């Protein structure tokens, strides 16, 4: 068997092992490659940084364990920034299997900054049919969420006094890995015209840059890279996403190598077949 035939018929499990090693080694032995801040992340940071203490931000954190590895660092960075700025946080999770995950994250970050529930932050929890929830929140948060996640009436929470709908929040920033992004753009920002930002999983992020250009989104942060940049901007003590960028570098380089090697072997084999036929 010729060398390219060996490579063409390479067992997929060898490829799996290589990608696993490419992720494992930089995780154990970080390189510390420098991360440059992109204008898009700086734009989002600046928008939130410009808010005044006491203003309310709505964070719909819509992801579940399947995408938490990518979006949890982003959500935690956004929450930390909000609490650093003494903003009041209103959060919800319209992804059914992420509700407990998001509750845990908010509680952890709020504890870091010694924030009091009901005064500094409120967690609304989950209701089904995100499109309907988004539309009805535009009239009154109490319509889809008469009670918060813990069963307390919204009117009994000091933070919610005088807070009726999107008009009473400074901006909405959704950290999202679901089709809920489209719902927020169509049924939320499209109908009620509030400032909407997006922290998106990388796999769907490329679909939404058009909305930043059209002004329907005030900004976008994509994937683990965006989270890493945001962590630098807020000067976080524990840059989870930042540590992941070394792994991303090596893994991406390996996949590019796979593409190149795969094509080289393919073209060499194709040329040999054409010569044989001739």
């Amino acid at each position, binding site marked *: 068997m010729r060398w390219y035939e060996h490579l063409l018929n390479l067992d997929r499990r060898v*490829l799996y092992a290589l990608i696993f090693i490419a992720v494992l080694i930089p995780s154990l032995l970080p390189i510390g490659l420098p991360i440059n801040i992109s204008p898009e992340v700086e734009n989002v940071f600046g928008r939130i940084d410009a808010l005044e203490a006491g203003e309310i931000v709505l964070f719909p954190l819509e992801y579940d364990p399947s995408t938490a590895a990518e979006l949890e660092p982003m959500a935690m960075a956004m929450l930390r920034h909000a609490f650093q700025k003494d903003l009041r946080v209103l959060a919800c999770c319209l992804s059914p299997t992420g509700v407990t995950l998001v509750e845990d994250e908010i509680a952890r970050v709020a504890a870091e900054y010694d924030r009091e529930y009901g005064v500094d932050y409120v967690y609304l929890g989950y209701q089904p049919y995100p499109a309907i929830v988004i539309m009805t929140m535009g009239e009154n948060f109490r*319509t*889809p969420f008469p009670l918060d996640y813990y069963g307390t009436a919204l009117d009994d929470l000091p933070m919610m006094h005088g807070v009726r709908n999107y008009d009473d929040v400074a901006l909405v920033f959704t950290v999202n890995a679901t089709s809920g992004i489209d719902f927020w753009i169509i049924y939320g920002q499209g109908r009620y015209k509030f400032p909407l930002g997006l922290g998106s999983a990388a796999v769907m992020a490329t679909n939404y840059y058009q909305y930043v250009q059209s002004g329907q989104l005030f900004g976008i942060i994509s994937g683990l890279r965006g989270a890493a940049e945001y962590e630098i901007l807020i000067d976080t003590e524990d840059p989870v996403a930042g540590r992941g960028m070394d792994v991303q570098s090596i893994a991406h380089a390996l996949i*590019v190598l796979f*593409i190149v090697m795969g094509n080289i072997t393919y073209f060499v084999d194709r040329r040999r077949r054409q010569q044989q036929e001739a």
Partner: protein
Amino acid sequence: MKRELPRMITLVTGVFLALQYYVPHRSSAHMYETLMDWLIVVGIFAILLGIAGLVRQHLTKIQSRRENWPYSVALLTGLFGMVILGFWGQGLGSPFVTAYFTLLNPVQATMFAMLAFYIASAAYRAFRARTLLATILLLSAVLVMLGRVPLGELVWPPFSLGSLEIPGIAQISDWLINVPNLAAKRAIYVGLGLGGSATALKVVLGIEAPHLRG
């Protein structure tokens, strides 16, 4: 009656919701809020219907001892186990939440983590620059992949060739995302918007009635 009544309901509710957008009157907004609120409650039952269907399917499988029926036992044990644990509350630290983080979290996360292996395998075995279009796609993918990581920025930073400023791979990647990718996705989403609105209109007018099948 069996077909006309549902069609009538879809027509009345659909037309009202479509027109309500243009009617800012208080009574219209109140009606809109009520209809939406009711939909959330109906939605709860719709989800429970799906779960009831799942339970029925796997119970039948166990009763008739069909192939792989023991896995259905695991499924139903997990389902009813979580429901029973839920009776003790869903606060942080409760058995319900512990089961969530111990059983659901790792499996769901790992299922999606496996996609990294598949994408690596596909990159080697399937990603071939057979045609011009495939080559354009590959080149774009490689430039964006390397432009989005610190290693790529380190290997190919912006530099000057005399008076000419050559952009780095990060700037090239950003341009690809913010210009041709933007145009492409906008073209797709415009088509989506037109198609989606047309389909929604067909459903409201009863031309398409997916709920009447079966």
